């Protein structure tokens, strides 16, 4: 049977006694070699999800079973590459995407300079680093013994120039089998890569976005979601995180979204510089491009291969950020498939397992001790931040969004009202929350103490209180009017408004405001906390004028390179009763 991208294959027809088939096995369908995957087996029939457009597929066409799951190629050449949802390198295709063609993720012609780090006879285990390739100025690609190798001795490993597929040496396993080493390895995308141990999270991810780093922190190795209706700046926010986050590697998965936005990233990243090293951002980034017009099954492919590549760099001992825009498109793709399979639908016709599926995917994030027995233990992490696009903009009623908010420990909710008021980033400070403020509080406190920012969490509390109080008074004012509330309450409203406009809002086009380092952020918070204390209680009109002026002045300081003196001058003038 063929029904859109669902293809049913008769296993009996494939051999005399029938062919054995594995759940989630990779398959190739028909003379066009369309890539597919077994997603259900019933008696002698297997249901395949086809990753490409099935036009022209006939009953009677042969299906080839490969004997393995869908795999991702891992090795030097990933950084700076633009790959589709199945890991094909897009530059290898012409103007249009052909069907049934494969362009391997790693360019087989490119030669890499490999420096061996172990000698013949050394005993190695899976995960051990056997050498390095300087893949980009920013990243040393650590070549590891693949996870499924047996422990054994190195034989014939040499430094030199190799392509990704060249044999660079062997491991003679303790099981007596000799296995080939290459610069690349393969890993099934659906299965999380192994780690020696999963750790409790202990560090903050510095995203440079103040409303995140301050009020709604994300831990390195943690999870977050950013749900928002169209036009609220979801994609812009993901782009900003990709640019500014202080991590070693960024994996950006464009899943079922506009091609134009991905083109922007593809053309822009080679020109943008990493703030620390001044090198082009492409040198630390892998882009997966699955646009909304591509077949829906490949959406799932994109989030799985994205996670696999992220884990691979994590295993080298790096901090990885996995950004996905948008997870909803994958969930909707699953909904389409579920309908075709005739499964009993859950809410909004999503399959019943959608929440469990998303939880499993988010759980691939984490901070780990990497596998490997030689040398020092490496620590690596993968942090996951996923955007969601709820149908109808209905955050409360959209099952994938709700499942993500439940699972991801920081929920950064974008608000249409704030976007319309041009308050960017348009996160709603009252709706957003980070469970890390509770669950990782001690770890965060220790983290800030080692960074010599000991009062960070205290400042955050004070600032949050101010925002909450301001919003409370604001809603009272909507009923009672300005005259209906006391001057003291009005002061709280003005300060809450000031904190939102001068601190939570950030101008992504201003070099010094677009991303805030932890040190600068700390200075800013300390200033605001003092300002909240010092701001004089006067009549409403005077307070309002002063607050308006302060918002303007603070914004100017935010835009300038050195901020501490500017803030101090403002504090002095407020304390001195200036103006």
């Amino acid at each position, binding site marked *: 049977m063929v029904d859109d991208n669902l293809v049913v294959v008769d296993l009996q027809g494939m051999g005399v006694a029938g062919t054995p088939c594995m759940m989630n096995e990779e398959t190739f369908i028909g003379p066009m070699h369309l890539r597919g995957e077994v997603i259900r087996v019933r008696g002698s029939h297997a249901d395949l999800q086809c990753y490409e457009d099935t036009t022209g597929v006939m009953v009677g066409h042969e299906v080839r079973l490969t004997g393995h799951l869908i795999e991702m190629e891992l090795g030097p050449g990933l950084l700076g590459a633009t790959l589709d949802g199945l890991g094909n390198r897009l530059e290898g295709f012409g*103007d249009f995407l052909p069907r049934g063609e494969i362009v391997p993720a790693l360019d087989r012609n490119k030669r890499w300079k490999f420096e061996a780090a172990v000698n013949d006879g050394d005993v190695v285990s899976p995960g051990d680093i056997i050498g390095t390739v300087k893949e980009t100025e920013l990243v040393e690609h650590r070549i590891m013994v693949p996870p499924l190798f047996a422990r054994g001795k190195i034989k014939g490993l040499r430094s030199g120039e190799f392509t990704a597929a060249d044999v660079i040496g062997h491991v003679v396993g303790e099981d007596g089998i000799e296995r080939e080493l290459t610069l690349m390895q393969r890993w099934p995308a659906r299965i999380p890569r192994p780690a020696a141990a999963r750790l409790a999270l202990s560090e903050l991810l510095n995203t440079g976005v103040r409303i995140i780093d301050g009020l709604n922190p994300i831990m390195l190795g943690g999870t977050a979601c950013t749900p928002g209706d169209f036009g609220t700046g979801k994609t812009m926010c993901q782009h900003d995180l990709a640019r500014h986050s202080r991590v070693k590697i960024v994996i950006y998965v464009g899943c079922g979204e506009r091609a*134009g936005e991905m083109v922007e990233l593809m053309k822009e990243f080679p020109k943008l510089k990493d703030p620390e090293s001044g090198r082009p951002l492409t040198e630390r980034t892998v882009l997966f491009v699955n646009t909304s017009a591509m077949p829906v099954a490949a959406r799932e492919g994109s989030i799985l291969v994205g996670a696999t590549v992220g884990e691979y760099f994590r295993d080298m001992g790096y901090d990885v950020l996995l950004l996905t825009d948008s997870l909803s498109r994958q969930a909707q793709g699953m909904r389409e498939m579920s309908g075709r399979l005739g499964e009993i639908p859950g809410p909004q016709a999503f399959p019943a397992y959608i929440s469990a599926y998303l939880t499993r995917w988010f759980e691939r994030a984490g901070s780990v001790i990497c596998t490997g027995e030689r040398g020092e233990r490496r620590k690596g992490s993968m942090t996951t931040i996923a955007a969601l696009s709820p149908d109808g903009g209905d955050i409360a009623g959209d099952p994938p969004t709700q499942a993500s908010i439940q699972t991801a420990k920081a929920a950064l909710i974008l608000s249409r009202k704030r976007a319309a008021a041009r308050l960017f980033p348009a996160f709603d400070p009252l709706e957003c929350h980070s469970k890390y403020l509770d669950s990782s509080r001690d770890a965060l406190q220790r983290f800030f103490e080692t960074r010599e920012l000991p009062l960070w969490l205290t400042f955050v509390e004070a600032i949050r209180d101010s925002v909450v109080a301001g919003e409370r008074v604001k809603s009272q004012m909507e009923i009672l009017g300005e005259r209906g509330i006391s001057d003291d309450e009005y002061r709280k409203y003005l300060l809450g408004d000031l904190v939102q406009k001068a601190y939570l809002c950030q101008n992504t086009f201003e070099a010094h405001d677009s991303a805030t380092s932890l040190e600068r952020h700390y200075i800013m918070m300390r200033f605001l906390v003092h300002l909240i204390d010092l701001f004089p209680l006067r009549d409403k009109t005077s307070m309002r004028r002063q607050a308006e002026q302060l918002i303007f002045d603070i914004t100017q300081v935010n835009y300038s390179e050195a901020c501490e003196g500017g803030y101090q001058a403002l504090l002095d003038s407020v304390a001195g009763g200036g103006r």
Partner: protein
Amino acid sequence: MKIVYCDISNIDGPILQVRGVSGVGMGEQAILPGYGLAKVVKIQGDTVFMQSLQGSLGVLTTQRTEFTGRPFELPFNADLVMGRIFDGIGRPRDGRPEIQGEHIPVEGPVVNPDRRAMGQGYIETGIPSIDGANTIVRGQKIPIYKLPGEDVNHIVARIIRQARVAGQENFSVVFGGLGLLNEEYLFYREVLEDAAERTIMCVNLGSESPIERLNVPHICCAFAEKLALAGRHVLVVMTDMLRYADALMEVSNAQGKIPSRDGYPGDLYSRLARIYERAVNFAPPRGSVTIIGVNSVPDNDLSHIVANLTGYITEGQLPVERGRFVIMKCLSRLKGLVVGKETRKDHGPIMDACVAAYANALGLREQREMGFSITDPVDLAYLKFAGEFERRFLPADQNLPLDQTLDLAWELAALLPKRVMRIKKELLDEFWKGPQD
């Protein structure tokens, strides 16, 4: 290769089933001689499910079916298509002969994102609200939202007649009519006559099959893509995309698919994306495809699923109410790529200032309507500005070159005191038309 069958076993709405078939491929076109065309949408064992483009009214169970062995294709010839009108299956509906030319797939492959260029150049519509405040970039996709009862045909007609690409001769328009009323069809036929040398139309009438309607956007985009590859800049204008979504719902339900939200099928997003994503900017010397889709929005509610998904897919929106663009709700996400870079340096600042001033004036007007008296001379100037802005700038029935649109904006801004303009001093020195403060 043709395979012929003589029985139809099941008729269920527009879905026809033929049994005992082999050698037929997914998506293949079938001819029902004497009746019409169909497309293979599902194959189960030896049963083929076809979606009949003409519905099923009057289909005999003994109807012959010829499977063509090819997907749905369209004859195309760049030299012959201009000024022509086609129907929802690509046949001429202007009484002139069939096009002789190469056959192109209606739903072709997806453009490689790696081969797309960043948006550049813009489409000048002559309508100040668009060109000035919401410039449409070549390769952009943007919907015009309207209430179901609102008639925007005169605006669409203006865009078809007036649109141009600055400094480029090689510009074409493809118009797609989805479920047009006969009266509307006659209206657009006249529009075509005015711009026949550069316009193609593909029209499905409201009285015709809704299944054929599903083809119209794809036919328009297939033509546009071909022309763009040959170096033309093409604007595709389609109305009304809500009718497309409704036709899709009808077909999906007939196939027994489980609806997801408000009765629409779960793949509505993917389907709409497959249309709008054909908007593209190729690297020169090749051209571009820009798409404007008119979309009725019941109750003006942007959380309505069709408008909402369209919002996720497209790059901005142009809502229309009572014949005017609702400037406060309009957005062109890509305009930053060209404004001030390919247009005059004052373009961005003066338009931002005018829109901000208008927003401020609307707030004042609201206060006045609530019974507060507005007496401050600056406030009164804002109200005067708003009145003139609405009278002279916002109406859609204009045809101004962009430079004149910007001049008009400066002229209107002169109604306000210079000091409230949040514009850089150098620009004010050069462009300010009002009295000095």
